C-alpha cells in the first residue's frame, strides 16, 4: 500500500504537469513540469513522505532500464545512420565530450569564485586543465 501511494503521487504530478503544459502551450515536457511542482511541494511541506521516498528510489535505482526501448529503436534507423555514419558518430562523440568538459570547467571555477567554501576548497586543489 505504501509503495502504491508513492507511485500514485508521482503519476498525479505527471498528469497535472501534462495537462498544464497543454493548457498553457509551454515548450517543456509535462513530466519536467511535474518534477518542478513536486519539488516546490516538498519545499513547502519541509519533508519527504515515506511512500514517496520508497517509490522514487525504486524507480531511480533502475533508471537505465527505462531507456532501453528507445535505444532499440536504433534498428529502424540503421540505413540513415549507415549513410551518414561519419558526421553522426564523430559529432555526437566529440560534442558530448566537449559539453562535459566545458560544463565541468565552468561549474568548477564559478563555484570557487561565487560561493567559496573554505573547508572543501582547500582539499580540492583546483588543478584543472
Amino acid at each position, binding site marked *: 500500500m505504501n509503495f502504491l501511494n508513492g*507511485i500514485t503521487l*508521482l*503519476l498525479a*504530478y*505527471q498528469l497535472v504537469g501534462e495537462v498544464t503544459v497543454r493548457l498553457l502551450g509551454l*515548450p*517543456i*515536457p509535462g*513530466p*519536467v513540469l511535474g*518534477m*518542478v511542482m*513536486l*519539488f516546490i511541494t*516538498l*519545499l513547502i511541506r519541509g519533508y519527504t513522505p515515506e511512500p*514517496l521516498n520508497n517509490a*522514487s*528510489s525504486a*524507480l*531511480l535505482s533502475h*533508471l*537505465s*532500464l*527505462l*531507456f*532501453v*526501448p*528507445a*535505444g*532499440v*529503436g*536504433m*534498428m529502424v*534507423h540503421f540505413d540513415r*545512420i549507415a549513410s551518414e555514419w*561519419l*558526421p*553522426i558518430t564523430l*559529432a*555526437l*562523440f566529440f*560534442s*558530448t*565530450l*566537449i*559539453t*562535459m*568538459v*566545458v*560544463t*565541468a570547467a565552468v*561549474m*568548477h571555477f*564559478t*563555484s570557487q569564485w561565487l*560561493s567559496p567554501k573554505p573547508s*572543501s576548497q582547500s582539499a*580540492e586543489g583546483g588543478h584543472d*586543465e
Partner: protein
Amino acid sequence: MNEPVITDIWVYLSASPLLGLTITLIAYGMAYRLYLKANSSPFANPVLVSVILLIVLLLVTGTSYSEYFEGARFVHFLLGPATVALAVPLYDQLSRLKALWLPVTISLFCGVVVAAGSSIGLAWILGGSLEIQMSLAPKSATAPVAMGISETIGGIPSLTAVLVVITGITGAVTGTRLFELMRIRDDSVKGIAMGVAAHGIGTARAFQVSNQMGAFSGLAMALSAFATALVVPWLVDLIGI
C-alpha cells in the same frame, strides 16, 4: 504434430505485449549482471549491452520494432514518473543547492549552448546533411524534450530519440574517466556536467557513483530540458539555418 503448436504459440506471443516486456527485462537483467561481473566498468554499460542483445534477438527472429514496442512501451512509459521522482533526491540536496544556485545557472546555460552549437557545427564540418544537424542539435536533452525540439527545428524526431540514447551512453561511459583526467573531485560539479551532457542515462551512472552526484545530475538534466527547449530554436535562428 509438434510444428503447428509451436507456430501457434509464436503467433500468440508476437501479438501480445508480454513478449516485448519480458525480453526487455531479461536482457536488462543479464546486462546488469554482466556489468557487476565487470566490476562496474562503464564500458559494460547496461543500456548499451541490453540494446545490443535485444536488436540481435529481434533481427534473428525477424520481429519488427513496432511489434517489440507493443510490450516495451510499458517500460518506456515509466520514464515519465521517473522524471517526476527526481524531485526527491533534489530536495535531499537542498542545502548544497542553495549555496550553489548561481554557478549552477551559469554552467547550465554554457553547457546547453555548447551541446547544441558543437553538435551542429561538427556535423556541418563533417558534411552531415541539414536533417542530421537538426536531429543532433537537441541530443543532450532528455528524450521527450529532444524529440519535440527536433520536430520544431526540422530534424527527424525518432532518429533524435536514438541519438539521445547514444549520447547518454557516451556520456555515461566516458564521463567518470574524463573528470578524473580533469582532476575534478567535487561530486556536485561532476553531476552537473554529466546531467547537462548525458541526461537520464548519465544520471543513472551518476547515482552509481554517489547520491550527491546523482541528485545534481538529475537537477542538471531537468533544468537543461527547460533551457534546451528555450535556447536551441533561438540558436538555430541565430546561425541562420
